[in-house]
């Protein structure tokens, strides 16, 4: 059992405190935008924001989020999230799309901290998010594009 703010709404989930947040979000809260890729914090497909910081929900546990603020891809809103989505759509970033929830949340977190990131900043912030389709080339361009949109 944990009570926390999920996408802006106070939520109580009846789940074992040792259950990974990933599975609680997906199967208890019904938010399936957060994906399972590795279960070991190696791929980033399950990235969510915990108090504004990107974390791997497969290695974050229900017991860890009591009183915290959790944002998933479904709840990512505001100017930065909108700029990121607009850039992703404009550059046609996704291929299979499976990793993109995690990529987008990682990008939103980066741009919230660093409005004008360098390529090195992007490498540092998103290297933990695997994309087996290798849309990396467009992810990098889309983050720069989103930064320009936010500046405008």
């Amino acid at each position: 059992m944990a009570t926390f703010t999920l996408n802006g709404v106070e939520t109580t989930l009846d789940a074992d405190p040792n259950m990974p947040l990933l599975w609680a979000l997906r199967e208890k809260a019904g938010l399936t935008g957060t994906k399972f890729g590795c279960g070991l914090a190696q791929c980033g497909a399950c990235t969510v924001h915990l108090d504004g910081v990107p974390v791997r929900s497969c290695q974050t546990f229900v017991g860890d989020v009591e009183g915290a603020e959790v944002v998933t891809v479904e709840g990512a809103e505001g100017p930065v999230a909108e700029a990121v989505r607009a850039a992703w759509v404009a550059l046609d970033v996704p291929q299979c799309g499976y990793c993109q929830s995690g990529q987008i949340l990682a990008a939103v977190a980066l741009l919230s901290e660093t409005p004008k990131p360098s390529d090195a900043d992007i490498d540092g912030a998103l290297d933990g998010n695997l994309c087996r389709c290798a849309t990396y080339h467009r992810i990098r361009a889309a983050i720069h594009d989103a930064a320009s949109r936010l500046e405008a």
Partner: protein
Amino acid sequence: MLSNARPDLRFALKKLQSAPVSRRRFLIGATATATGLAVGFHSLPSGAAEGGTPAQSATPSPFASYIELSEEGVVTVLSSQFEMGQGSYHGLATLVVEELDCGWQAVSVVGASGNTQLYGNLMWGGVAQGTGGSTSIATSWTRYRTAAATMKAMLVAAAAEAWGVPADEIEAAEGRLVHTASGRAAGYGDFARPAAALPVPQEVTLKAPGAWSQIGNPEVKRYDRRAKTDGTQDFTLDVRLPGMLTAVMIHPPKFGATLKSFDASGAREMPGVVEVVEVSRGIAVVAEDTWSAIDASHAVTAEWDESAAEQRGSAEILAQYRELARQAPQALAREEGDALGTLAGAERVIEAEFEFPFLAHAALEPMNAVARMNEGGSLEVWGGHQIPDLYRFLASQIAEISPEQVRLHVLKTGGGFGRRAVGDGDVVVEAVEVAKALGWRAPVKVQWTRENDMRGGRYRPAYVHRLRAALGPDGKPLAWDNHIVGQSIVAGTPFAGLIRDGVDATSVEGASTLPYAIPNLRVGLTTTDVKVPVLWWRAVGSTHTAYATEVFIDELAEAAGADPVQYRLDLLADHPRHAAVLRLAAEKAGWGQALPEGRFHGVAVHESFASFVAQVAEVSMEGGQVRVHKVVCAVDCGIAVNPDTIKAQMEGGIGFGLGAILQEELTLTEGAVDQANYDSYRPLRLSQMPEVEVHIVESDASPTGVGEPGLPPIGPAVANAVAKASGRRIRVLPFEKGLNA
């Protein structure tokens, strides 16, 4: 993935057919559906009266259509082709939007299945529905455009009748019909039902290329891009059915081992666990939710009979391959002139051996499928079904029902790369077997963990290539001998018909089709017996043949003191499409011009799946590591239906291939797989991705594929640049190993 242009496949898959497929005649048909109009093709068996049989009387199918139009004007494309990220759904939608003139607003695409006559892959002789060999556009090119043009003609005819005006005065655009003279206008949906009652035109005229507004338009963006940025795109992982249970598998620790006994008493006591059952491929831990199943799977202990299992390590397997490569090949895939005699008498002979590891597909969505038996005895199976007809057949056998009682829901998948086209239907079989073991009392999702996926086999086979060439006084090759040693992908599968005269075409493609003019040429194959399950892996044989042949030809150019681009061009006089992409990539990359200090260019060109790709890689060595800065890519895939998708597939193929040559390697120790997750099996990361520039050759040739052909040249292009940068030819992959070999 399955290779294209292989009529042999019709023999391989014939047993799946309930009716002969040859000499079949296709008639277009249309039916009124509950919600509107559906247009597809009905086929008649050979011998049916030519032109005399109304299309509507052909065998009806509940899913028999390519396009459906609802009364609300919603256009649904029923895709015969599977979407794993490569953009097939978008490609088919583009063909439909082009000819139907319906605009993009109301278009969606769903996976279709259950009708081989409609959905059988024409590049495989139409014998089975399936996706592979980069054939989606080729098999759909005429079908879906014709279906869309037919639907539009019927809508126009219905409007003409209703409005009492000539059909040729009605304009159709953006999903609306307009008769300017009378001021009448309506949406397509308004005429969906009346159109369905009209006769179906058997001849429609497709647009001339000059009239295309969608095909070839680089501004057309993927129809599914929004759903893939807001979390609403569903995959098999996201299937939820009332009362559904989730199972996690425990597979044998070595390939070929069988279950002796297991103890699940502890697991059964754990919260959420429903049952632990044995199925043909291992043990299934069934729970009310995924995490409970994963958690409880660790509490199961099992004893395995390993007497028939593979016990060798990958190093031993590859050492054996090296020995075999120096002996005579079992079979010849190509022989022209006298390669061995020429080599024996030659003054200048160059030799090289290449070693390629097993590779995992490692798609982000681990394998999964969902099975549900309905009251009334029909079975539904949800999944990333890459070969629906095969999986329907396999599912029906387990359920002991007819294939017609099985309905497959073909869902988009989180990456495929060939992994979901499996002859024995692995995870599909597991889902149906587990549901059956539970007495069909609940729908069951089998969800593999990453560890299941990594250790589940179906790898790109390991190979060794031995190459020898004799150079003439002018430096040109007089003889070329290439001996390939490795496992057959298709042996023992429904695709075994691809083996002819002892040669599995997927083992040698790209090597046996070497385009260079060499008078004495031999390509031999030795197929090995190893119990590691292997499979097509994006670009299949060309994943290793392109590397071996394009690194070796570069080495010959170096020995001849020739420029690597010019050396190739001199040998490609009879292959203008190879030569054209090679020239284009070289020109765009500034081949031969000065590069920044420490940067070097390497080049490669390769044909796969009837598309031609050349790449120039710009590389430096940093701290003993290879850094790829930029790749310039030229592609000729015939008519470019979706230029932006083509670019995306080249970019993706380059990234996928680069990870493989730099650092991916699946190894075994005493028969057990060493890697389990992405910490030890490491695909390319963002920081390693080069800048990519793609140039598409303008062409009016029939469209060919792009899902795979972007991959083969990247390895050799980078290796050839590394040879200049470091003086070393990397002949053992991945580079991390080869640089230290």
